């Protein structure tokens, strides 16, 4: 689904991404970890078609990041901690707006909205303004909206930051559920226990990928009890 070979991004003399090579498979939950300033955001922006790499062969959902940015944008969903729904619009209006952005027909938007809210058990609040909805629910709604156009890949940038522990787990269940329908999930997080929910994780440090494997194998390799210890060993 995502293939990056020797992906490089330079800002002047600063190398933000230093020859990143990785692949993400269809339906995989791929954890993208790294210290602050390690180059995660830069890489994610390139993969979302928001910025052009300096060099490297990169394709996302089968499209080339240099030439087919628009096609990439149509095939992916994106949600970040900062990605906010419009507070003064209702749930329904937010769905309609984002559905409209991706050019979904009215009928399809209605169906998807009903389906996604049903799954969240949130259908009763469809006409509530976002401003009146608790934070945890907002994050779950934001995720639903990120997948309203049935993207093949969804990028999640610290989606659970500051969310209570129960909602955080419900959020991950949504991720599992999404991945079980062959949607690829590419996720960053600062919660190291969440890294363990991923099929595979990569850990970046100073622009390079220092480790890439399943959480179990990484723990074995670094002889660590949990991912936190693995991370601290690599990023130190």
């Amino acid at each position, binding site marked *: 689904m995502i293939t990056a070979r020797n992906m490089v991004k330079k800002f002047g003399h600063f190398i933000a991404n230093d020859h990143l090579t990785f692949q993400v498979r269809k339906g995989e939950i791929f954890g993208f970890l790294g*210290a*602050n300033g390690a180059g995660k955001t830069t890489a994610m922006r390139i993969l979302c078609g928001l910025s052009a790499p300096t060099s490297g062969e990169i394709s996302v959902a089968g499209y080339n990041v240099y030439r087919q940015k628009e096609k990439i944008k149509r095939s992916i969903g994106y949600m970040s901690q900062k990605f906010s729904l419009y507070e003064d619009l209702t749930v329904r209006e937010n769905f309609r707006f984002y559905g409209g952005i991706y050019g979904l027909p009215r009928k399809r938007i209605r169906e998807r909205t009903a389906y996604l809210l049903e799954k969240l058990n949130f259908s009763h609040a469809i006409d509530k303004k976002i401003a009146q909805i*608790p934070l945890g629910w907002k994050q779950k709604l934001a995720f639903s909206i990120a997948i309203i156009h049935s993207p093949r890949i969804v990028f999640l940038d610290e989606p659970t930051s*500051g*969310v*209570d*522990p129960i909602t955080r787990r419900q959020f991950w269940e949504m991720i599992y559920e999404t991945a079980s329908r062959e949607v690829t999930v590419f996720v960053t997080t*600062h919660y190291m226990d969440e890294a363990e929910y991923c099929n595979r994780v990569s850990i970046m440090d100073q622009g390079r990928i220092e480790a890439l494997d399943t959480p179990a194998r990484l723990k074995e390799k670094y002889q660590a009890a949990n991912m936190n210890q693995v991370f*601290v060993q690599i990023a130190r």
Partner: protein
Amino acid sequence: MAAVTVDHISKHYGSTAALRQASFEVDPGELFGLIGPDGAGKTTLFRILTTLLIPDQGQVRVRGYDPVGEYRKLRRLIGYMPGDFSLYGDLTVEENLDFFATIFDTTIEANYHLIRDIYQQIEPFKRRLAKNLSGGMQQKLALSCALIHKPEVLILDEPTTGVDAVSRKEFWDMLLKLKQQGITILVSTPYMDEAGLCDRVALIQQGQLMKMDAPARIIEAFPKKLWIAKADHPYRLLLDLREWSDLAAVYPFGDSMHLTAHSDDLDETRLKQFLRERNHTSVEVARANPTIEDCFMDLMNQ
């Protein structure tokens, strides 16, 4: 005398309650953690303590002063680091520190010993603009700025949010050192795993303090037996366990599931048998000690 006394304070914003009848005390020299998710009321509580907000109800004392009536005296005694660090991005590291020293009528030199351990880590970059620092370094600079006037009480609002695991660990090491210098520290965090580093913690959710105690005692007080289950396909494992009516709660924790049952008679054999019936492979089942996070979720469900 307690360093901080909070007695039944409530605070509303319009019709939403940010704090409901919160009460606690912090002893001098204690490292006190306020643990809860965003929107739980942590920032509101800290803003009341730092004289920035007036509670609707209740009494507050910080070092014996009332943040409402005696805010002027109190403002000299506290060091405050608001969320998202609040530095001047267009000032250099050194200019920021110098500015905060000046407005408290002191100099970097006078209190350098207080911040030396922390500031030395960012001193090589002292001519760099604060906005060009990494999250971890900004956090260290913000802490230095909050410490430069030698406060008696240090109040840190989510100092580790959005900061990577390594910087977080370093930050907590610094707090433990400061504690040794006798400074009373109140710190809030949404990361449950940081609770264990505090002397005492308060678990807060939707404006309510659910529990307050030493972390070890909160864990001891967990009312149920906790089990851990592991198998090859965690998502299927979760869905299957959810269907089992004997279980009260099933939560994913890293690579395994944490389970609690309605009654105490759940045992290893029954668990394993259930999972075998559902064709799970590489099944591992064990009793485990709860974490603060387990306690938090249990309290949330009450």
